[in-house]
């Protein structure tokens, strides 16, 4: 009967008018998440992925597990997630005095790669792994196919590891005997990408369907055959790991799971499932594509017309150059575009400016041109704009004014790009410009904002936090000479019970985090850094800094970067002599000091906008090695990245986690606002805080400061010129 109903459903849906389907099955454009935090059915994965640039968070409660996951899609074909699972039938440690009544917390990475896109007749096919670099308690691999037929998304897959309920013989054994037996090495420090056991051992089959219910506001029904072997997952009764458990996991009474997903919007889903024939599970997920240029909110920030622009233009045509300079200074300043120097000749204008409002440098140049085009006499035919940052020249754009103006009406930005010369620019402070507005130094800016310091998932408790008010200041003493500070005052914290002592045998350059958290509860200076920037040669940038460079170290050092304007790569070096700060995070220092430094290589792949950064050198704990950082930058400015380090210390010396690794994303805040603005909200995570491969986190890295000094960074934004 059930099969008959399903067949009828599929046939009738195919007869429906395709475009109306979008309304019959509303909110159907986003895929839903499984209880394991990645896209899938209920417990089982599917071959579905969100589009590149999407970020998601999923929370689920499946007794005895509470699981939160962060999911990122750096490419259309790649899903990466980090799971944090509260295992409520096991203790944090087998040493009772250590764990107390704290439940076990499991951290793990999952990954899924799509092998084939879905075709008219062919399903999408993906391969993936769960818990691939954790302790392995949820370790599994799978090969899965999904095919959408009308409102039904069918999934069928093969699983290994914990997804081997049926204990079928492994088809890969025909290739090699090594696939016969799955030997999971539990005697590790966790965090290792041990692929040796992947796709080995018994095999299970899983499958199911996600069915869109018509005219029910996007409600979906899910049903699946669950391949999970609950005797392998977590801390099962009878296994060696059961010594951590204080009660067994409920055995399943049925392999059939079913449930509903209710999308409150395309972004926010609620779910309720009945699994194992005896367990109710529920959760929610939130996801969105933050990588698209236009962001979530339509921008209402068109370049405004200059008030009485035609009158100003007429006056500028009649008065002397001094009047024109002052009018440019005023009307550009009104748009947060700051004229630094300018020289007018009979038909050309050479202007240097700085700005901190637009994250698109093409847009900022377009805004400058928009103002100038409205107020400058018509005799000015060519406008050369030079962008300055930190007292260093970044780039120069020479516009043909007529082309800029005539292409504006129909937004023919391609033609404007074609007629504009774009080149590197070395700012010569000694060069004589006809107009150089007097600057009054020192010039100061400040910002006060809330802040939270946190310690999550330790044996003392799940969350320890410190709510603070922070103040950030920047004082500019001269062009290229700045002093930046960050300090904060604690308002409320729950750090009293935080007592975890570091077990690291390396110098405690990071693992004294608890001492820093507790020592700086009232007041802390996070940074007090004096910077001197310069560009001594074309494409070469330098920075010398001294002071309190980060939360745990202060000292002196410098950085040099060679960033050829027209190339996709850069090469740099940095060297620092630093001393460890006292736990109160004020002005006192501890005894430990070290010389640290790296050779830095950066490469930005032009088509995918993937940035590879390799830093090789000596780290804060005195270990030497390489740090690899991969990230993808999206049109919105979203950056999704991951890193790992390999140094000359052993896994034993490194401790839990085996080696340094983590991920981060930088979310551009403009995607949520109607006005353009610079700024990133940064989120980064290392599963374990360890001392090995620790990098000095000084402010104003030259790679970031000189972002706009590269052709590729600019040219991909040409469509912003009239925005």
């Amino acid at each position, binding site marked *: 009967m059930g099969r008959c109903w399903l067949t009828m459903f599929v046939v009738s849906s195919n007869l429906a008018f395709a475009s109306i389907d*979008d*309304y019959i099955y*509303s909110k159907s454009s986003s895929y839903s998440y499984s209880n394991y935090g990645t896209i899938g059915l209920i417990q089982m994965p599917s071959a579905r992925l969100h589009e590149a640039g999407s970020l998601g968070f999923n929370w689920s409660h499946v007794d005895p597990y509470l699981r939160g996951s962060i999911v990122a899609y750096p490419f259309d074909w790649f899903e990466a997630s980090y799971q944090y699972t509260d295992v409520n039938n096991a203790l944090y440690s087998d040493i009772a005095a250590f764990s107390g009544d704290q439940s076990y917390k499991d951290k793990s990475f999952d990954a899924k790669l799509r092998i084939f896109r879905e075709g008219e007749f062919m399903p999408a096919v993906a391969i993936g792994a769960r818990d691939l670099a954790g302790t392995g308690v949820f370790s599994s691999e799978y090969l899965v196919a999904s095919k959408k037929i009308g409102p039904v998304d069918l999934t069928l897959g093969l699983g290994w590891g914990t997804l081997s309920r049926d204990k079928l013989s492994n088809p890969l054994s025909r290739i090699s005997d090594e696939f016969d037996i799955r030997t999971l090495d539990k005697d590790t420090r966790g965090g290792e990408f041990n692929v040796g056991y992947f796709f080995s051992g018994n095999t299970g089959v899983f499958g199911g369907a996600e069915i869109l219910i018509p005219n029910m506001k996007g409600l979906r029904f899910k049903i699946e055959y669950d391949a999970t072997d609950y005797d392998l997952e977590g801390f099962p009764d009878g296994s060696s790991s059961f010594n951590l458990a204080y009660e067994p996991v409920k055995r399943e009474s049925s392999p059939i799971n079913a449930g509903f997903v209710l999308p409150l*919007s395309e*972004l*926010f889903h609620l779910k309720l499932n009945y699994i194992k024939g005896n367990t109710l599970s529920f959760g929610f997920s939130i996801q969105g594509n933050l990588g698209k240029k236009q962001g979530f909110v339509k921008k209402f920030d068109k370049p405004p017309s200059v008030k009485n622009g035609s009158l100003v233009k007429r006056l500028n045509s009649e008065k002397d150059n001094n009047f024109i300079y002052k009018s440019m200074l005023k009307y550009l300043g009104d748009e947060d575009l700051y004229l630094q120097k300018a020289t007018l000749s009979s038909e050309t204008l050479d202007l240097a400016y700085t700005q901190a409002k637009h994250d698109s440098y093409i847009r900022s140049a377009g805004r400058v041109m928009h103002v100038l085009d409205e107020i400058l006499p018509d005799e000015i035919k060519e406008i050369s704009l030079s962008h300055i940052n930190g007292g260093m020249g970044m780039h120069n754009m020479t516009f043909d004014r007529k082309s800029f103006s005539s292409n504006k009406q129909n937004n023919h930005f391609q033609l404007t790009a074609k007629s504009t010369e774009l080149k590197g620019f070395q700012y010569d402070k000694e060069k004589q410009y006809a107009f150089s507005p007097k600057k009054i130094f020192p010039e100061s800016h400040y910002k006060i904002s809330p802040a939270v310091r*946190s310690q999550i998932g330790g044996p003392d408790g799940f969350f320890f936090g410190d709510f603070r008010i922070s103040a950030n200041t920047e004082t500019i003493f001269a062009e290229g000479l700045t002093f930046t500070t960050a300090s904060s005052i604690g308002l409320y914290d729950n750090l009293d019970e935080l007592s975890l002592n570091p077990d690291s045998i390396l110098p405690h350059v990071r693992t004294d985090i608890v001492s820093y958290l507790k020592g700086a509860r009232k007041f802390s200076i996070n940074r007090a850094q004096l910077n001197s920037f310069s560009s001594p040669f074309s494409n070469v940038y330098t920075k010398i800094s001294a002071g309190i460079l980060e939360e745990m170290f202060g000292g002196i050092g410098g950085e040099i970067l060679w960033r050829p304007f027209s190339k996709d790569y850069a090469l740099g070096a940095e060297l620092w002599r630093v001393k460890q700060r006292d736990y109160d995070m004020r002005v006192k220092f501890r005894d430990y000091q070290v010389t640290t430094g790296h050779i830095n290589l950066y490469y930005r792949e032009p088509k995918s906008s993937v940035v590879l950064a390799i830093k090789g050198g000596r780290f804060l704990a005195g270990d030497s090695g390489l740090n690899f950082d991969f990230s993808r930058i999206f049109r919105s400015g979203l950056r999704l990245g991951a890193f790992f380090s390999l140094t000359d210390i052993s896994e034993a010396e490194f401790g839990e986690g085996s080696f340094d690794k983590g991920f981060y994303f930088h979310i551009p805040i403009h995607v*949520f606002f109607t006005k353009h603005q610079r700024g990133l909200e940064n989120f*980064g995570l290392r599963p374990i805080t360890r001392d090995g491969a620790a990098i000095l986190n000084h402010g104003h890295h030259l790679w970031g400061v000189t972002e706009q000094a590269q052709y590729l960074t600019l040219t991909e934004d040409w469509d912003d010129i009239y925005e």
Partner: protein
Amino acid sequence: MNKILLVFILSISFSSCQTIPYAQIPIIIKTAVIGADDIVISDQVIEAREFSFIKVKIGKDFIAILSLVSINDGVFNWISSTGEHIFTFNGKVIKTTGLPHNIHVYSYKSFSCELSNQGSINYDLMLDNPKAFISQAAEISYNSPIPKKCTEKIVTNGFSWSSKNYYTYDANDLPLNTTQSIHPKLPIIQIEFFYKYK
């Protein structure tokens, strides 16, 4: 829902680089909970405006003033300062451009609020984002003569979208206000009409 995502992202990343324009957060939260600030149309506002205009409220987030651009064959074309257009015929929204979800009603001429016009009519319309060509059955009922009020009960063929639209007219049969569901993915739209010359 975007705001929920923002609040979520704020909450997970509070401790990081403080670059959020915090001054905007209370505004966002207020907009999310209460809605955008209303625009009060006083006599002075009406006096100051050169052309007839409408005050449009879509859901609780979007409030705007649109000015009359043209009248063509009974179709009033209204434009906002940011370029969105709303076209009305006897107060019924028959076309929009620039909104997140737009519509174009093709068979609107038979819509009017007259006692003699009570009964059933049909509309063909194109929905945008996602695109779909649909037909609707409308039942118009004449509610009162002064002020003249009508209710339009609409049922969509093919999927579940039905609505009740309300229209009020002045003594010159010009629409005064209306409440309509114009697109299944948009909140209810409320329009108040203000005429400079009658």
